[in-house]
């Protein structure tokens, strides 16, 4: 137990939390945007997977991590737009279409990898480029904080900067406010002249962009190869992080960090001769528990709101 506590309160552990939170935070921010736009994106998982695969394959082919990143993002956005087209233009059920996108991503990536390498498991035979790790001058020399904040992968910084950008976009820009209006009440938004379909295309497109960054981080930051189904449910954990974070950017970030901590803990505990599978369960169990907690809190709030509403009604009536 002492050992475990020591592990948790070390700078390396906190640095690890930031590292493993990244591929949850990025898709969660994307999912947040689409969720607030009224189009829940269940396909985050598949979008990440496609981007991870495309990133590695293009970076191997061109020997450029930047072209890999670009390819991953383009593929991710493309997948999101396919989903948007089927839902918004062809009126397909959003959830079923997203499930189809996930199946397409899982099958399609393995199909392509097998075709190119003859190996179904992973592309470890190919040497991929990696997104750069950034040493921040001055900060890197500060004790404790230095090893945490400095030396992370570029995309980890992107993820945390994205929290600010998403918050500004959603609450401080015209497009963001229109987008939330569409999610709140599409009929009302339409009546004041907002193009609902365009806003929802934007919402899904942005969610694809952010999820794709998360996918590229997994295959070209976290490791240097693509493995089948390497997202391992992160796209769905990201969805849970949105709910748990109360559908706000900052809340989502905190929730993603909590899930990241659970996962980092499971990695650390793995070194302590606790059975591997039980430790691996931690993030999934944490997600389940978080879902229940979120739901309970929501219900309490609803009850409180109702009570307040009744109180005001009685005061109005008696006053």
């Amino acid at each position: 137990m002492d050992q475990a506590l020591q592990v948790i309160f070390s700078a390396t552990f906190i640095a690890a939390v930031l590292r493993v939170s990244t591929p949850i935070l990025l898709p969660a921010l994307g999912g947040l945007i689409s969720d607030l736009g009224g189009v829940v994106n269940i396909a985050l998982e598949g979008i990440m997977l496609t981007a991870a695969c495309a990133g590695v394959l293009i970076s191997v082919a061109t020997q450029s991590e930047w072209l890999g990143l670009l390819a991953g993002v383009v593929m991710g956005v493309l997948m999101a737009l396919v989903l948007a087209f089927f839902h918004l233009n062809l009126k397909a059920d959003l959830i079923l279409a997203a499930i189809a996108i996930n199946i397409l991503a899982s099958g399609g990536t393995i199909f392509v990898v097998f075709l190119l390498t003859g190996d179904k498991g992973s592309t470890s035979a190919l040497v991929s480029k990696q997104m750069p790790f950034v040493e921040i001058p001055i900060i890197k020399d500060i004790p404790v904080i230095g090893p945490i904040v400095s030396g992370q992968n570029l995309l980890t910084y992107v993820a945390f900067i994205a929290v600010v950008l998403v918050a500004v976009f959603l609450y401080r820009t015209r497009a963001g406010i229109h987008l939330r209006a569409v999610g709140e009440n599409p009929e009302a938004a339409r009546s004041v002249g907002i193009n609902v379909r365009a806003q929802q295309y934007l919402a899904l497109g942005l969610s694809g962009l952010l999820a794709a960054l998360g996918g590229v981080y997994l295959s070209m930051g976290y490791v240097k190869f693509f493995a089948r189904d390497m997202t391992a449910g992160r796209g769905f954990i990201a969805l849970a992080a949105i709910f748990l974070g109360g559908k706000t950017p900052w809340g989502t970030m905190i929730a993603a960090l909590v899930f990241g901590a659970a996962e980092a803990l499971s990695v650390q505990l793995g070194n302590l001769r606790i059975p591997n599978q039980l430790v691996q369960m931690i993030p999934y169990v944490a997600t389940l528990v978080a879902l229940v907690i979120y739901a309970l809190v929501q219900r309490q709030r609803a009850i409180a709101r109702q009570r307040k509403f009744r109180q005001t009604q009685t005061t109005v009536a008696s006053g």
Partner: protein
Amino acid sequence: MQATLPTTPSFDRAAERARVQRERRRTAMIDVLVTLGTIALALLVGFLVMLIVGKDPILAYSSLLGGPLSRTNRTGRWIEDATTLIILGLSVSIPFRARQFSLGAQGQMFMAAMIAAVIAIYVPMPPLVAVLLPLAAAMLAGFLVGLLPGLMKAYLNANEIVSTLMLNAVVVLLYDFLLTNVFTPPGSQSLRSEAIQAGSMLARFTTLLGVNLGRANLAVLFAAILVVAVWALLNRTPFGYEIRTIGANEKFARYGGINTRRAIALSFAIGGAIAAVAGVHLVLGVHQRLIPGIAAGLGFEGIVVALLARNNPLLIPITGLFYSYLRVGGDIMEQEAAVGTEIVLVIQAVIILLLTAQVLVNYVKSRSRPVRET
């Protein structure tokens, strides 16, 4: 169908009935045509993909579409896989009818396999009981694994897609843990449990008929019974009515006095109990022991089977046979043409996308509507 109501005072009952029946037959025909068209289009997409990647699509498709019937043991694999998929399709069709996206079949199968195996390996039982007891226990386990996300959805409004998928991951890891640490006998070379007792094994057609039909077994009967049972449940019971009403319009169902929460939670749980039968099929019929990843890769297969059948239990055997034919053909294609069997997943995704695209389906329907003389 928006048929114009007859306004003439002389209302001919018999003629009207005949007209309604004719109309029904026609819609059913169109549904079948839309489905067949979708399948053809999806296969065409697969064909084009192979053409683009430079594989020989003729060779690949001849093994994909001809493979399962080329040898009796392959046909056996088809029957075996179809049994699983039909049961899975039935399992998914119940929550789907209530418009609940329960994706927990995988976890339910793993849990059921585990429970059935523990009883079938360690508890000595007389014949018949040796099959029925593991089956009943596994179904109860599946029921409970389904009930949990069902309750979370119905009473807490927790997203069922996230909860079922997380639960799947937990159950699969638990299965892996128990198989490694408990069920594999010490000193065993490979990761697998002991064989189940002989009385629990579902007889295989290979021994029954003397033809090599691989591991296909009597669980086919389970699938047949379930088809009728699920049809009766959905169409001939109050619960089935509740489920269908919720699926059509949840608010209406609630105002109509249906306990929607109870019905929704139950739809998850009953789906779980049925998925458990698929898990039992894998343990008592196919593998006759626990092996790693016993139900791997079966997570979403029930969805496409149920969707193709439009959640109609009586059509699920047909779509299940069709889709497992593709799956088995895909494996054979991989061996013979070096084209990954995952192309079948791509075809599956295309089928789901096309079938749910209302605009496309309606377009086809509107084009095939005859001009009515009114």
